[in-house]
């Protein structure tokens, strides 16, 4: 990916100042680079997403493969897997989240500084996957955490993880610092920390965070089946 491609404004991004995107492109061709603080900020953030280094199951192997020379997650500036949540921007939940592990995952998320993002990688992290009805399996990490990107697959190939990362970059570049649709981390009314579930006698307590996730309404079909 060339530098020129990175500096180009993404689709949802508005033109800087009072000029249109076309006029700005015209200026750029003449060597005049116009930008806004917001765009520069998002450009820098989106190209240095440091994930927190932890893996939960087989998806972690694919995540490791994505960091190797063959797939090379460093092309997107996300190769620095941090061993501390304090230094991480991104949590890749790679693998089955057991009920025993879920409080630790939520605690790690709470320890990460804003702005932070969460990728649910693979069927298990999304919904529990093939182990959904198991006695010790959480039915998706989005019961407790706000997930930005879902990557389906069992496990997803490294290309799928890279695609998910690119989607996250796109999302970051489209974020606003001010205004009614400002990014989550700039707003005081949106929580950045979530209650850690405790171990109960039969299940986690609570089993989900109702502020983050509520079960979808059932589809009631009318007419013949």
């Amino acid at each position, binding site marked *: 990916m060339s530098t020129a491609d990175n500096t180009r404004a993404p689709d949802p991004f508005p033109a800087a100042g009072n000029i249109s995107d076309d006029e700005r492109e015209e200026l750029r061709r003449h060597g005049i680079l116009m930008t806004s603080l917001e765009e520069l900020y998002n450009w820098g953030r989106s190209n240095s997403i440091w994930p927190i280094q932890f893996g939960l199951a087989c998806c972690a192997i694919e995540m490791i493969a994505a960091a190797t020379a063959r797939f090379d997650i460093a092309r997107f500036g996300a190769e620095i897997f941090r061993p501390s949540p304090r230094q991480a921007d991104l949590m890749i939940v790679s693998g089955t989240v057991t*009920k*025993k592990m879920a409080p630790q995952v939520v605690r790690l998320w709470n320890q990460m500084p804003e702005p932070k993002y969460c990728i649910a990688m693979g069927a298990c992290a999304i919904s529990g996957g093939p182990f959904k009805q198991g006695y*010790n399996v959480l039915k998706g990490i989005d019961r407790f955490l706000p997930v930005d990107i879902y990557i389906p697959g069992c496990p997803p190939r490294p290309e799928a993880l890279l695609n998910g990362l690119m989607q996250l970059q796109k999302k970051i570049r489209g974020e606003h610092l001010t205004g009614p649709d400002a990014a989550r981390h700039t707003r005081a009314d949106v929580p950045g920390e979530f209650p850690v579930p405790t171990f109960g006698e039969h299940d986690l307590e609570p089993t989900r965070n109702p502020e983050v996730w509520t079960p979808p309404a059932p589809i009631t079909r009318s007419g013949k*089946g």
Partner: protein
Amino acid sequence: MESLEQIRDRLLARFPGASITLVTNPGPAAEHSLLLSAEHARKIAMFLRDDAALQLDYCSNATGIDWPDKEVVETKKVAVPDPAGGPDKVVEEKTTRLEPGYLESVYHLYSMALRHGPVVIRMRTVNRSNRVTLPSLTPVWRSCDFQEREIYDLYGIVFDGHPDLRRLLMWDEFKDHPMRKDYVEPDDFEWEPTPHGAVLDRAKTHYPAPEVKP
């Protein structure tokens, strides 16, 4: 290696008070096993490990089995005399009795030194509720340590003499034993797009049936 019958006979001669039963496996694997009485199991296990002809020095696998209470129906043919004076009528009488359940621990033993095995031994608890203690074989084979903890966690067999008997997979506060047949899962059904089988039954109790208009 000796046959299981030979091993059993040798054990019975060595430990006169112990009850050792050969449990046959009717399946194609035909992996028969020796059922040991709990009070002599530790000594028998030491013998199996140290005996020169067997040298079963490696326990590759320890697992549990839950045998729930079972209703057994017995049919008995009874001859009832005919009041009219004819020949006796043969009537089938059915009696049901409750066979109490028990928990079982199973060990697969191999010999690294003599390269033979497996020899399968098993032990049974008295019942499934309050007398669930079995002797731990971890002092005999170190490899049983985590596996006996797992059996304790998932089946609830208490191993007497285990050096560190804690839950292995579930958290310490957990009260149930998930691999038991009568384990009741927490009622945490969540909507699924295409439920089927047991999941469909749970879905029906949580969501009303879709309205189908003609």
